[in-house]
Structure formats: C-alpha cells, structure tokens
C-alpha cells in the first residue's frame, strides 16, 4: 500500500518538488553546497533509471556505469575534440547509449538472477577497459581534460546556481516520466515481471520486449547523467565509471528502497553525502563506509524508505496503545 502511495502520480507532490528545487536553488549560495547538491542530482538520475530496471522490472545490472561513461565520454570527445555543439552531443550520446543498450540487452536480458548480474558486470568491465585503453580517443588512464561548459544562447550554465537548476529540473522531468510509466499499463506489466516472470508471460505480457525497453530507458538516463557530469566537472577519467561505480549505483537503489522513485533520491543523497561526511575520518573513511553499508543492509534489508516507514508505523501503533 505504501509503495503505491510513494509512486502514484500526485500533481501536488510534483508541484511541491518543483517548488523545493526552485527555493533551494535560490537560497543556497555556498559553492560547496551547490556542488554537493549538483552531484546528488546527477546520482539521482543514475539511481532512478536503475531503480526502474531493478525495482520495477526486477532485473539486476552490475554494469550500468558503462552507460554513464558512454554518456560522459561521447559528449567529451564530440565537444572537446570535434567542437560539436554540446546539445547535439547530448542527443548523440543518448542515442549511442540506447543503441549499445539494445545490442547488449538482447542477449544479456535472456539471463536471470546471478547470471544476469555477471553478464552485466562483464560488459561494464569491458567498457571500463575500453575507456582506459583506447587512449588516442579517451585520454586513457590519465583522463580527458578540457570539456567545455554548457550554455543556451546567452544563458551560461557556468555558475553553480544555473547548473543546479539544469540538473535538478532534469531530475524533476525524469521523475515525471518515470511516474507516468509506472502508473501506465506498461508499468503494471513491469511489476508483474518483478513478481513472477513466468506468470506475466502466461497472461500475455511480452516480457522480453518490456525488459529491453526498461533497460534502454535506464541506459538513456545514465547517459544523460554522464553528460551532465562531464560538462560540470570538465574532466573525466575511467576511474569514475568502473565496477565500483556500478556497485555504488546498485547500492543507491537498494539502500533507498527498491520500487520507489523517491527512494532513489534518498539513496543517491545518502551515498553522495556519506563520503563527504566521512572525510572527517580521513584514514578510516573506507572502513566506516563499508561498515555503514553493511549495517544499513543488515538492519533495513528493505531499504531506508521502507525501514523508516516501518519505524514510523511501529511508533504510531505504540502511541495508540
């Protein structure tokens, strides 16, 4: 029931979200906070796409950093090397990610469970190796520098505030698209795949096509996130798109709570903020990070959204008695 509540399109909720974005953008002046918020937005784009695949369609991917990297590298190479207009590069980056997602998804999505996880892992690793080894095009292990910043006409996105609005209104639009899909016929079919693939096939759902469509959709969102990341940081290296990044994306989805687009926002925020907070631990950063990850999963295996709702409901029942 709560899952339904969390995902139902609610015009008020979206209007509120819009307002919050506008207000936060106006109020936050500190450059550091703006940067953290922008990174949260980019990670949210990654998480919400993967959440469609994992939470709704029930298909795991351990290689989504590849699409993130494809988005980032395509736009970097096109804009910095060939001086192509960034917004055209965005279209090309997304189309390329979509094309690769179709080619990879067709054979891979026939697998299930761990085998699917491993197939996507393998393809993610191969792309990371391509980013690292094709140095004439990608700059190799040392990375790619000099990615231009974005602008529309005279409106420049160089400042933190403008970029914040660009990223977060992308997030807002993607959320809207996702909740439209979730509440459509296709969304219900997806959830039926999540519950039982065989049963949904038996009632006439074309599971393969649907799975592929969601895979492609999440790849497109990841490429968009890669595009925004590349033009914001202006420097990319293969380390940002490695196996750990794929795992971090999965973790955002699971920690936030699967099958909830707002959970994706929560998970992305936590996993972006956690390293920032842990800087205080300096050398102990990795140890604490690993511990937090394990503890959250041990204590709240359903994710934070579900976990916090459970605690809330339990405490409310207590007060009633």
């Amino acid at each position: 029931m709560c899952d339904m509540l969390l995902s139902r399109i609610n015009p008020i909720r979206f209007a509120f979200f819009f307002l919050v974005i506008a207000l936060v953008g106006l109020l936050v002046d500190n450059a550091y906070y703006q940067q953290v918020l922008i990174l949260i937005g980019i990670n949210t784009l990654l998480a919400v796409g993967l959440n469609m695949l994992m939470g709704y369609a029930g298909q795991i991917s351990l290689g989504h950093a590849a699409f993130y990297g494809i988005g980032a590298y395509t736009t970097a190479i096109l804009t910095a090397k060939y001086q192509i207009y960034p917004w055209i590069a965005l279209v090309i980056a997304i189309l390329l990610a979509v094309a690769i997602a179709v080619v990879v998804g067709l054979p891979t999505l026939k697998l299930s469970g761990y085998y699917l996880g491993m197939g996507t892992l393998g393809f993610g690793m191969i792309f990371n190796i391509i980013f690292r080894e094709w140095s004439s095009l990608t700059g190799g292990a040392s990375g790619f520098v000099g990615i231009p910043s974005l602008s529309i006409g005279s409106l420049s996105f160089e400042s933190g505030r403008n970029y914040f609005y660009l990223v977060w209104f992308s997030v807002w639009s993607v959320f809207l698209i996702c909740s439209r899909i979730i509440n459509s016929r296709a969304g219900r079919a997806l959830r039926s795949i999540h519950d039982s693939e065989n049963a949904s096939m038996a009632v006439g759902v074309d599971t393969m096509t649907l799975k592929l469509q969601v895979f492609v959709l999440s790849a497109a969102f990841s490429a968009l996130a890669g595009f925004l990341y590349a033009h914001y940081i202006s420097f990319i290296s293969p380390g940002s798109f490695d196996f750990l990044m794929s795992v971090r994306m999965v973790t955002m989805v699971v920690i936030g709570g699967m099958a909830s687009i707002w959970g994706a926002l929560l998970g992305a925020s936590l996993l972006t903020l956690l390293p920032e907070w842990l800087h205080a631990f300096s050398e102990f950063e990795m140890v604490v990070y690993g511990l937090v990850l394990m503890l959250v999963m041990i204590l709240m295996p359903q994710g934070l959204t579900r976990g916090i709702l459970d605690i809330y409901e339990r405490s409310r029942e207590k007060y009633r008695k």
Partner: protein
Amino acid sequence: MEELLQYLFSGITNGAIYAVIALGFSMLYNATDLINFAHGEFVMLGGLGLVTFWTVFNLPLPVAFILAAGMGGFAGFLFERLAIRTVSKPQPIVLVIITVGASIFLRGAAMLVWGKDAHGVPDFSSHEPIDIFGATLLVQSLWILGIVLIMVAGLHFFYNRTLTGKAMQACAINKRAAWLTGIPANKMVLLAFIISTSLGAAAGVIIAPVTMCSYDMGTMLGLKGFCAAMLGGLGSLWGALIGGFLLGSLESLGVGFFSSGLKDAIAFILLLLILYIRPQGIMGTADSKRF
C-alpha cells in the same frame, strides 16, 4: 615455439591461482547460493598476512603459511557470524551488497594495517629458474602448481571421503532435506565460509612472491576468479579448475600475441561468451534459466 611455451608456463601459473579463487567461489555458492564479492579481499588478506608473518615476524614459512590462511578463515568465520547470519530476510541482492560492503571494509582495514604501499616477499625457495626448451620456468610456479594440486586433492578427499564433506555435499543438493536427515545445515554454511575464505587466503599466500601485495590487489583477482568459476560452471569443483586454467592460459596467450592492454578484457569477454553460449558453464549442469 619458445614464446608459446613461455606464455603457457605463465598462463598455467596464473590459471592455478584463478582456479583456487574459483574453487572458493564455487564452494560457497554450493553451500549457500551466495556470491561473495569480498572473496578477492580474502586473497589480499592471505598475501599481506604472509608479508607480516614471514618477513616481519620471521616465522618459518610453513607456520606463516598456515597462520595467513587461518587468518583468512577466521575473518570468514567472523564475516558469516556477524554480517551474513544476522540478516533477517536474506534476499540475494541484499546479501550481495553486504558482501560488497565487507569488501570495502576489508580493503579499508588492510590499508590501515599495511599502508598504501605494495609489499613484496621472496620466493619460497631460492633456486635458479629452470630452462625447458628455451623457455624459463620459475621455481615459484612449481610451488604454486604443487600447492594448488595438494589443495584440490585435499578438497576432493574432504568431499568424497569424510562424513562432514558428504554432509556438506548433501546440503548443497538440498539444504532442507539435509537438515531433515539430521545434518546441521547452518554449521555446514559456516564451515563452507571458513573453508572458502581460507582457500582464498591460501591463494594469496602462494602468489605473494610473484605479485606485489597491496591492500587493493583483491578486487581484480576476485573478479577474475569469478569469471573462471562461471567459465567452468558455477558450483562445479572440476569446472572451477578447468575454468581457472583455461582463463589463465588464454589470458597469457592474448597478452603475448595481441596487447597487454587486453589482458583484463579477455576474462570478461570469455565471461560474456560463455554466458551467451552456454550459461551453465563448461562442466555445469545447473538449472541456470535461459529461454
């Protein structure tokens, strides 16, 4: 010809390592249906453990070996008891993230204990490399092969000749049925964890002389071992061996005849190929779903 032989020698050496790591994966998968993404980190613990016990504490090599492997096993014991057993509703994806969390934790802990620098240890015995038809064979390679063979034979003996091993096999076939016949299935899971992680640590010990050991050496080794396990068939012990040697040889041939940048890609290309063509692996008969 000499080149080919040289590549094969190094391939078989690497392959033996992948095989041991894959064995650890497969054992654990058999007993628990769990894929342990922290497995590579136990390999790292073994290697760095040997650095400490052998070169810093100056213990005799066999003692240091056993201590390092035992340390891996003990870490596996703690891991199972504290992290895996405590999950109330174990979903595969949740367990996978816990193992990932454990791998980050272990890497961080190793960085604190051993620092960020890579450590080397000398070969197990100081003999001259052997010359075979113009190709050189490191004596350490023979050590690696020998120890791997002993471990495999030991594991085979354990599974087929001891009651505990047979009980563990029964658990792998059907946990509930095994439990009904009086086998303590939970203890078997714990034991599988301990054996699997100490196998991983032992793999770290024997490769310590041929690679530099550092806190972040485990991830790639773990993933490669994983590819080997998939290649041979997840859950099959002989498959893990075949997968390991196949991966090691193909990798070193690929590096020799194409480019060294390709080295890491070969394992994953093989992984994709086997998944698309024969997802159950070379030796596997498992019920991997594909339609």
